[in-house]
C-alpha cells in the first residue's frame, strides 16, 4: 500500500493488490497517507501457498481490474 500510494503520488499510475484479510490495514494506510480514495484490489487470502500455476491463474483473474485502474478507463 505504502509503495503503491507513493508511486501514484510521484505521477506514475499504480495498482495495488492486497489479500482480503488486510482490508482494514490497507484502508488505514491509505488514510494515513491522505489517499483514502486510492483504489486497491483485494483478492482472497492467502496467496503464499499457491504454486506457480495457481498464482498465474489468480493474477489473470485480476488483470482486467489492474488495467482499469492503471488506465483510468
Amino acid at each position: 500500500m505504502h509503495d503503491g500510494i507513493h508511486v501514484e503520488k510521484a505521477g506514475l499510475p499504480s495498482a495495488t493488490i492486497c489479500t482480503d484479510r488486510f482490508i482494514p490495514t490497507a484502508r488505514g494506510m491509505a488514510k494515513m497517507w491522505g489517499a483514502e480514495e486510492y483504489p486497491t484490489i483485494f483478492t482472497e487470502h492467502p496467496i503464499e501457498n499457491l504454486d506457480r500455476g495457481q498464482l498465474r491463474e489468480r493474477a489473470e483473474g485480476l488483470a482486467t481490474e489492474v488495467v482499469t485502474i492503471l488506465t483510468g478507463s
Partner: protein
Amino acid sequence: MTSSNETTTANWDDIFNAVEALYDLGWTDGLPILPPTTDKVAEFLAAGGRDGAEIVGELPERRREITAEKVAANAVMAGCRPEYMPVVLAAAEAMLAPPFNLVGPSSSMGGAAVLVIVNGPVVQELGINSRNNLFGPGNRANSTIGRAVRLILMNACAAIPGLYDRSVIGHPGKFSYCIAEAETETHWTPLHMERGFSAGQSAVTVFASEAPRQVRSVGRPEAILYAIADVASSLGTSLSTSGSVGDPAAGIRQGETVVTIAGNSGLWRDWTKASVKEFLHSRIRRSVADFKRAQVFPGDVEPGDEERMVPLTASPEDILVVFAGGEESNMSSVIPSWGPKVGSTSVTREVRR
C-alpha cells in the same frame, strides 16, 4: 510528520477514573497503566537528560516521529522508575535504527516481540534481573522496561493489534521482553563488548524475535549444546521457512538466533562464546528431505536429500550467546529471529547517561 506529536490533556482527580479513561483512549496493552501526568513526564525527561521535543527516531512508513516526550509518557504509563529512562531511550533508539526495520517486525503476521538485552554497569545499578525467572515475572525493571517498549510500539509507532500489527498468534513476550546478561558471573565476553562497546559502557541490544523455547539439558557442555542445536533446528520456526528469504541461494531465511545459557559458569571454563557459536553454527541445520516433507522446498524427496543439510544461520556471528538464567541448573533457551537479517537485524545502542 507531526501526527504523533499532538498532545491530549485531561484532568483526572481519581486514580481509578484515570485508569478507566486510559483504557477508553486505547493506550493500554490490556493491563492497567499509570496516568502520564505532565509532572511525571517532565521528571522522566529530566532523568533521561533529554528535551521533550528531541526526535529519538522515525518510522517514515507510518508518518511517525518518535519524540523523547512520547518515550517518557509511555515509560510512565508502563510503571517505570525515572532512572530507567536512559535504558528505555536506548531501546527506542535501537529499534528505530534503519537496520532494525521496525515496520517489518511490528506489522508482520509472524508476531515478533522486541527482545531487549541489557549489558554493562547499568544492570547492577538498576537491578535488572539476569538470573532466576529470567523472562519474568517479578522484577520491576525488567517488567516495566520491556512493557514501555511495547507501549511505545503501540502508542507512538502505531503498531496497533489488528490494524497495523497483524500478528497471527503473537506471544507473551509482546507484553514485556527484557533481560540482562549475568556478565559479572561468567568469564565470557559480554554481548555489548562483542559488539564494540567497553566494559564501562552500558548498552541495549534489541532483537525482533519469537518466544523463548526452553532447552532442558543438564549434561556436559557438548550435550547441552547438542540439545540447543536440535531445538534451534526445528521445522516451523521463522527461520526454517522459504518465504521472504534474504539470500535466495540459501533457500531458507537464515536469520539470527539468541541462545541464553544459564547455570554455573564453571561448567563452561573450557569454552568461549566463539567456540560455542562455532559448535552451534555447524549443527543448527536441517536436511533437504525434511524441508521437502514440510513443503518448505517443493518436490519429492530424492536420493541424497537426507544427507544434504541446510544451515539455518549464515554465520556463527548470527548466533547471539547470552549468559543468563537461574544458576540452579543449566537450563537454556533458543530464540529465533522474526525473519531473515535483510528483514530485521539486531541492533545495539549505548545507554547514554
